[in-house]
C-alpha cells in the first residue's frame, strides 16, 4: 500500500517529545538536589 512519504515529520515530533519530557524530568531532579 502506498502512503504519503512523511515519516521524517513523525520522527522529529517523537524526538522533540522525548527531549522535552526527559529534559524537564532531569531539571526537576536537579532542582530537588539543589534545594535539599
Amino acid at each position, binding site marked *: 500500500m502506498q502512503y504519503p512519504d512523511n515519516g521524517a*515529520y513523525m520522527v522529529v515530533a*517523537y524526538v522533540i517529545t522525548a527531549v522535552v519530557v526527559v529534559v524537564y524530568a532531569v531539571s526537576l531532579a536537579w532542582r530537588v538536589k539543589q534545594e535539599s
Partner: protein
Amino acid sequence: MTRRDRALALARRGQVITGIALAGLVGVFIRALVFTPIERTQGPAQKIFYVHAPAAWAALLAFAITGILSLIYLWLKDRKIDSIAAASAEVGLAFSVVMLTTGPIWGKTVWGTWWSWDARLTSTMFIFLLFIGYRVMRGAVVDPEMRARFSAVIGIMGLVLVPFIHMTVYLFRTLHPDPVLLKPSSPSMPGVMLVTLLTSVGVFTVLYVGFVMQRYAIAILRDVKEEAASAVS
C-alpha cells in the same frame, strides 16, 4: 519527621512515579511506531497524534487543576494550595511545549501549513502565553500573599479558557480536527489505534502526577530554606 524530610520523601515518590511513566512512554513510542498501523491517507505523520493529543490533554488538565486550586486558594487562603497550583501550572507549560511543537509538525504535512491563526490554535497559544505570564509574575512579585492572589486570578482565567478551547472546533471554522475521544458519541478511531492513544493518555497523566509531586516538593524545600535564612538573620 521535619517538613524538609516530608518534602524529600514526596520528591522521591514523585521521581519513582516519573520513572515508571518514562518507562511507559518508551512503551508507548514502541507501540505507536512499530505495532500501530499506518493511517492510509495521512501516512506515518498521523502517528504524531499519539503524542500530540495526550500532551494537549495533560497540558489542559494541568491548567484546569491550576484554575480549580486557584478558586480554592481564594476561598481558604492556604499557601499550600497556591504552591500546588503553581507546580501544576509549570508542568502544564512543559506539556504545552510538546503540544505546540508537535502540532505544527503534524499540520505542515497534513494541512500544508505550520500554523493557522484559527480559533483552536490561537486560543491554545493564548493559554500558553497566559501561563508564561503567570510564571513571570510569580518571579516578579515578592510578597507571598499578593503573589498567590494575583496567581489565583490568572489561574481562574486559564480555567475559563480550557472548556472554550475544547469547544472551538464546534463553535468556529477551524483546520483542527474534531475531538476523537472527548465527545458525546463513541470514539471515531479503530480499536488498535484507540488503545495506543488511551495508553499514551494514561502515561502522560501519570507523568503529570510525578512532575507535580516533584515540583511541589521543590516549592516546600525553597520555603524551608527561606524560613531558615530569615530565622538566622
